[in-house]
């Protein structure tokens, strides 16, 4: 069993065979850095719990494609901030399946949004001058009827 410590001090136990879905943890184990417990300063307790839920489910029901698909669909039904936290955790822990799932979810969300709405979702400031923005809008005008 592997012990994981989140940034806010919560500890989680998980089987090694499940934990190695994270390439980061896998390398730490291989490099013998995991004697007592693995500290994960970039992931908080709530997010780590969710990530572990994902990798546990994917380890258990590995061959059940339909079940995994519906699990994945329900898994990403969280608020925006939590979704981004999970993306950051999946990126840090290097869990390809989870990163693919969450990035695809975000891509599907922003696919039909306007530029202003995309900025709101990502909480990004518009740092273009009005002239630059007008020029960009003109440059990439693909107008459909």
């Amino acid at each position, binding site marked *: 069993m592997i012990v994981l410590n989140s940034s806010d001090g919560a500890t989680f136990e998980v089987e090694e065979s499940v934990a190695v879905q994270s390439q980061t943890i896998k390398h730490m184990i291989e490099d013998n850095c995991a004697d007592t417990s693995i500290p994960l300063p970039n992931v908080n307790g709530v997010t780590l719990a969710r990530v572990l839920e994902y990798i546990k489910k994917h380890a258990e029901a590995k061959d059940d494609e339909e079940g995994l698909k519906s699990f994945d669909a329900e898994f990403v039904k969280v608020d925006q901030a939590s979704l981004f936290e999970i*993306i950051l955790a999946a990126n840090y822990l290097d869990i390809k399946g989870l*990163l693919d799932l969450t990035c695809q979810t975000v891509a599907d969300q922003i696919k039909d949004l306007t530029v202003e709405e995309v900025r709101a979702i990502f*909480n990004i400031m518009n740092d*273009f001058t009005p002239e630059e*923005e007008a020029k960009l809008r003109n440059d990439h005008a693909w107008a*459909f009827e």
Partner: protein
Amino acid sequence: MLFRHVDINFFLLLFILEYFFKDWTLLIGWPPQTWFSGGRWCFACIALVLRRIISALSFRGSDNVVAQLPDDVVIDILLRLPADRVADCRRVCRRWRSLTSSDYFIILHLDRSAPLIFVQATDLTDWRGTGKLAFYILDQASNRRNKIKKLRLRPEIKMSQGDTEVLDSCHGLLLFRDAFARWRYYVFNPLTQELLVLDGPNEGASCAFFYDPSANELKILYLCIGFQFFIYSLGGRSWRKIKSPPSGSPPQYDTPPAICNGALHWITSCGRIADAEEDIPPCTSGITIFGMDTEDFSTLPHPGGECNSRVNHRNMRLLVVDEHLSFCNVYRGYTVIDIWLLEDYASWAWVRKWCLRPNLYGGPRPLESECYSFSRRLEVVHFQNGELWLDCGERGLVLYHLDQNTFKKLGRPPTSYEHRCIHYTKSLVPLHRAALPQD
């Protein structure tokens, strides 16, 4: 209230910086403001300070984690969007613009893009005395019944839609020919709306618009009057003469070639509309091959043995399916389609994979017969995932599923006679660069 989150020293620091280092904003990527000069710097200062306060405040909420998505994650998300949405997202902020303009991103995105069909048709709804040629995109993902959308060009584009014909497409760039000045060609990316005008050495026809991986360049193979062949490299922007085919017969220059195994493949043509058997090249040299490295032409026989009539060659088409060369033969009467696959390129071993009777005019899900169809036509435009993309003339574009023997109508442009369909992929490849971005 305003100063709750901001230290007074922060203000002082900003005033000092503004007084001593007028251009300090450039160091951190803020745009230079012309109204900083001329004695109005104090107002500029205050405005700048206020802007900084606002930005500092807006990132203090519980959602501020979203600002920290690292570059590779943003790239991963944006790679999943279609190219026109990525072009829109360039307007979100400077960081996103630079991330999506890098060569690395453009190449990766091109590899992932789904193919589309680009259609050029006479737009009779735009009737002003003469029917103008208009451009359309077939968007399979669209929810509308008619999935064909019309493309608008910016008025500054010096390529009038009415006077050009689309010939081919490569890496998201389209090649057009001027209908009147028949030595003038245009390379155009509809997404970035960048246009390159080039003049051939003489009047002629373009045989192929292709990407040569060993030279990392886009090239045009051009047939000039006098049976002379030239290569135009988009990287070097130069024309170069090459050897003509020894067989004396040109490739079918009004159809894009099938590109695989480092070579271009076409059905051999006789260079003009011919009805006499003797004028059409024999079946033993039915396929013309052009090696990208050697720049040599050669011929090989088409599969299926000798044709009863060589006029059938006009209904033959070469495509690439899963990186294998595929030969589609639509028999006269449009009732049978033969599809062969080249299993072993080195030994030129062909296997007939499908013999279809697509029963477009009857059967389980027939296409409704609409209006009068004086041009019954059936052309295979693309073949992917077990589905044939068929151009059925009046009936528009149709997706035919080989195993299930079902049709799905994709739509048609406002008028369908004299239209042509080109296989195309949206991309953000820039034209102003000398060569294609290298990964």
